[in-house]
């Protein structure tokens, strides 16, 4: 058994990791897939969509419905974005 350190457990001692970050995404009106991504005054063009999948969970309390898209940008960077289908907003998150 691990002995208690005696330290007070406080909310500021725990930090979430890999929280979704809101991003501005322009989508192709036909396919609904991202074509450009804007963050911190920089615009990145999407070269191709590498993969996409859906995550639907927790329908029994606060439903979560996400459409994840892994894209390759024109500069070669790989990013994972998702469209929150409940609130209709785009986020970036490493999967």
């Amino acid at each position, binding site marked *: 058994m691990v002995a208690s*350190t005696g330290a007070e457990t406080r909310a500021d001692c725990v*930090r979430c990791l890999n929280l979704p970050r809101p991003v501005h995404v322009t989508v192709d009106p036909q396919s609904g897939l991202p074509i450009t991504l804007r963050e911190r*005054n920089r615009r990145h063009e999407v070269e191709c969509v590498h993969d996409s999948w859906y995550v639907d969970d927790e329908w029994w309390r606060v439903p979560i419905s996400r459409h994840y898209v892994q894209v390759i940008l024109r500069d070669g960077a790989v990013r994972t974005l998702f469209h929150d289908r409940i609130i209709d907003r785009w986020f970036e998150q490493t999967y």
Partner: protein
Amino acid sequence: MSIACLVIPHFALRVALLDRPELDGAPLVLGPAQGGRPVVIDATPEAAAHGVRIGLELREAIALCPEAIILAPHPVRESAASEQIVAGLETLSPAVEVDARQAGCYLVDLTGLERRLGPPRLATERLLATVPTLFRPRAGVAPNKFTARVAAHGAPPGTVVIVEPPTAQSFLAKAPVSLLPLAPDKRRRLERLGLRTLGDLASLSPTAVQARFGAEGRRAWELARGNDREPVRARLQPETVSESLTLPAPATSRETVLIAITRLVLRAFDHAALRNRHVRQARLHASLEDGQSWEQVTTLRDPGGRKRLIEALGYRVQTLTLPGPIVALTLELSGLIDATSRQELLPGFHSRRPWQLAEASHQLKQRFGTSGLYRVAEVEPWSRLPERRHVLIAYDV
């Protein structure tokens, strides 16, 4: 929930007036600390009316306002004055927070104190009465910290501005963005975008603000809409031992200062509170002959006893450039822990890293209040939602 905010604008200059109250109302300019770049650190409204502003070269400030009086900062006096103010406020409320971002700004939680202090206006007037009028304090009362701070900044000296919850958002809408707790470059960027008031910022979409200014921008947006859930954090009362010594003659040599420090350390370790205990941090205040002061904080790598502390302070003094003849010294020891001995392991038996990390964490926590060291912990590694898989936990929890 009612939070009162007391603000003393130009705190360092107001503290300087305690010695020379006849200067109240004169154009005052705060110069740099000993050896600092000769620029204006702060200026009273009387000096600002002549065009003196923060960051201006002192010679330019004098050219703009020849009757300006340049005062030097006095950190020891400032911390003593702040301590006195907090002690006065703590006689009325147990939850008093000293705003780390702005000297002379104090937040007081009035929740549950109605029966003792009366309604918020009366309670805040009682808080104001604990501060000397020479400081020209002003106060604001609002449902949260940020709104209370904005209200206090807009209040005339000696008065209280009360913001009722339903009017908080419309009240904030007219306030300038300069009151937001943002880095100066971000504040300038907001102004360059034509966002001059909190109302301008609050009218934007939160996603757009966050995409452009990051998490700090999102927080600013929330504050501009009057959403501030930060509670008033009463200060912790760290256990300290303090010793003072007035030198028989002003000391200019390092050797004399070292002898005085040695005596202070020995006297401090004679206190019952330090029996069989070690210290992590020593704060040395020096009062100079010309009325100014100087202070230095030494954080030990490992907690140490009297011998270790004298050695560490000795090294510090050897590299020190004395700012002037010293007339008195005060040594304040904090981070008191029980003296422990450590059994070293034979090489190859155990990695020393965890122990070293724990020590580094303790040392950082003592120096900066928080260690900033975290470790990754698994929460739900199987989760389909990436943010649920791992968290960062403070290293020393």
